[in-house]
């Protein structure tokens, strides 16, 4: 009955669990600082178990990371992803795959997981949203360095970030996908000007980043010159997995908020609302089951296009659940507490209100790839349907109309 393929993961899981328990015993999450705990997890190869040994991993299946995360959470520790989401979820897989200098990669990864060095992602521009490969920020070679000019936008955590994942145009004469290069830029320099970008909730989770003759080392380039799009795809695929891939127990998360409101307002129950909530709960449950199934069937290695399924479903479900919550609030839906911009508050703040989360959810179907782009990805990369005829693929980037 038992074949090697069914027994090996179980023993790997036991090995990972044993190693995690040893770290947690030596560094009790309730008494030691987060940096110490996460640093110890990194050193034990438990930060990203699928990374190679020496780079925070053990060379195991990525699905086994859930074993570590669960034990850390059960012991009262924070989630590694939550401390530095862009770095942990997207930066790490990119630098591991494309970083040429292993020592440099290791030097980035440890402070990344401890949260001592926050990462941000410098992709989107005012003129390059869904069409991010059309971006205009330029990087020009200057000896061992590159000089960067342009503007990035919607940059989460840039105001506290030490490192930025930067895609810049290094050859405007080539077609747009072929003139890009990927760098890791030091955000702590005079040429980098970070300004808050206020959003419809009144808060500013995001930033605009203005780059004026900012400098980046050629040693901090990931991949070949002109091959930046390929590197960026790695980051983007992990972004979608990271956004859509968070699961909890049944009835937890956003649908749990709706259940809490429902229980708290028996006076507002109607058969119509009850059916609507039952339908939302059912969608949340099948979404949760699909994430569990994807984790179980995903082979070790890079996440595939199925990340786009959960990103799309999760985003639309969030919006629908918060719309239901607003309906359930009745007259309270007219109220809002505070429009003051406070940079210390983000949408994941447990104290933020339903009304604020409802407004915030509008961004879910835009950030990390719009739902329209997600549907293109599912249609073209998963189902193999042909792309739209294009007018920009083979022309030099500088000749493509922009605006």
């Amino acid at each position, binding site marked *: 009955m*038992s*074949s090697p393929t*069914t*027994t090996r*993961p*179980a023993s790997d899981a036991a090995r990972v669990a044993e190693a995690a328990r040893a770290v947690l015993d030596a560094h009790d999450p309730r008494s030691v600082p987060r940096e110490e705990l996460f640093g110890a997890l990194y050193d034990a190869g438990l930060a990203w178990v699928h990374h190679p040994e020496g780079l925070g991993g053990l060379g195991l299946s990525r699905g086994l990371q859930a074993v570590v995360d669960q034990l850390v959470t059960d012991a009262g520790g924070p989630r590694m992803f939550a401390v530095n989401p862009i770095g942990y979820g997207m930066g790490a897989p990119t630098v591991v795959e494309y970083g040429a200098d292993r020592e440099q990669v290791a030097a980035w990864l440890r402070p990344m997981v401890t949260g001592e060095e926050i990462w941000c992602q410098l992709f989107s521009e005012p003129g390059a949203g869904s069409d991010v490969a059309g971006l205009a920020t330029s990087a020009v070679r200057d000896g061992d360095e590159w000089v960067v000019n342009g503007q990035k936008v919607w940059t989460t955590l840039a105001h506290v970030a030490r490192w930025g994942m930067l895609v810049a145009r290094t050859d405007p004469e080539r077609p747009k996908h072929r003139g890009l290069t990927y760098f890791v830029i030091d955000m702590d320099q005079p040429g980098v000007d970070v300004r808050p970008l206020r959003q419809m909730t009144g808060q500013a989770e995001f930033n605009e980043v203005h780059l004026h003759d900012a400098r980046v080392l050629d040693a901090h380039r990931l991949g070949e010159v002109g091959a930046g799009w390929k590197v960026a795809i790695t980051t983007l695929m992990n972004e979608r997995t990271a956004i859509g891939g968070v699961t909890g127990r049944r*009835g937890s998360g956003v649908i749990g*908020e709706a*259940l*809490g*409101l*429902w*229980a*708290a307002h*028996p006076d507002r129950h109607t058969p119509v609302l*009850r*059916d609507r*909530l*039952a*339908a939302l*709960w*059912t*969608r949340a*449950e*099948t*979404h949760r*089951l*699909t994430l*569990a*199934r994807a984790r*179980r069937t995903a082979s070790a290695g890079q996440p595939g296009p*199925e990340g786009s*399924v959960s990103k*799309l*479903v999760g985003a639309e479900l969030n919006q629908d659940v918060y719309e239901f919550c607003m309906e359930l609030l009745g007259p*309270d839906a*007219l*109220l*809002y*507490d505070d429009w003051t911009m406070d940079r210390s508050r983000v949408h994941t703040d447990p*104290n*933020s*209100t*339903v*009304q*604020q989360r409802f407004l915030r959810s509008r961004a879910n179907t835009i950030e990390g790839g719009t739902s329209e782009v*997600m*549907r*293109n990805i*599912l*249609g*073209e990369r*998963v*189902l*193999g*349907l*042909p*792309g*739209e*005829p294009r007018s920009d693929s083979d022309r030099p980037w500088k000749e493509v109309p922009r605006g």
Partner: protein
Amino acid sequence: MAEPVEFDVTEEQRALRDALRRFAERQHDEATLRRLVDTPDGFDRALWARLGSELGALSLAVPEDLGGAGGTCVDQAVAAEELGAALVTGPLLGTVGLAVPALVAAPGGAERDALLAALADGTRTAALVARLTAPYDGASAAGVTADGDRLTGAAGPVPDAGSADVLLVAAAGPDGPVLAAVAADAEGVTVQRCGSLDLTRPVARVRLDGACGTVLATGEDADRALRHAWRVGGALLAAEQVGVAQRLLDLTVAYAKERLQFGRPIGSFQAVKHRCADMLVAVEQARSAALHAAWAIDDPRVDDADLAVAVAQATCSQTAYRVAADTVQLHGGIGFTWEHVAHLYYKRAVADAALLGSAETYRERIAAAVLDTLAEDTAPPRVATG
């Protein structure tokens, strides 16, 4: 030995899937399907017996000492998905989905064991005579009354009853529910075949006038057997709906790649592409729900089986119907013709959505189980007070 974790797919299940796909391609292609739906029985008894004896596909979850393969409900769900994808004819719902699990859960005995063995190898067929368009509800499952071993009443439309050798009857007796078996050709039994909206799954009305049956279970035993039949039937019907939806998605995507309008494949238009993407998303969610229901039936540690089946039924009924409707739409005119296969699947999707209870009735179950039982102190999120 590692215990399989939910959603693991075993080598045996892959082999089963491949074998059934080959069987359907070689023995039950579209021409065969169209020929069989025009026959009085609506299926080929010899082919059915081969499914039972050669492939063992009719009794995967039946214990070995009762003539089955000794496998799991997940195994049977894998088969249901594949057989549904090809619209394989035969009493899959009446016999495999409902009668077999009812018998498995009924008390053992010579009559029960012999009937189960004959159903497992495909030499005999059965239908469950009950109110089959609602979720299980002990009281309302019976359309028939039992007075001792005498059965009286009418039920229908009942899937697969028109060609069944044996009718398993859910009856209301003086001391609670009764599960009885009666031969279709016994005195006092009238089976009237009806025109069926789903051409690939015939239905019949059944009338019993004091027909003499064999009582297999009464009271709690009968309730347990019928409850198990609805659970397993619900999970297998959900798996069949996944098979239907997946096959339609494949057909539609293939068509969208080859059909040219305005000088390009229609699948290159986002209006078409995005609908295909939504079909894919729905199929993936439905597959998770259907498999989860089967896992929950096999292992109570996985989930409450009734809730898992309710989720699967609520989800898969909607998905199969939506995907079938989209298939007709995306095929355009050809999709509305008799000659194209889409209508056969569309009609199956309509019937499947109604059988064992609609998505709406299962949402009602979900609401009762999840929403009506919430503790008042379930922590609410913060609400702005202005």
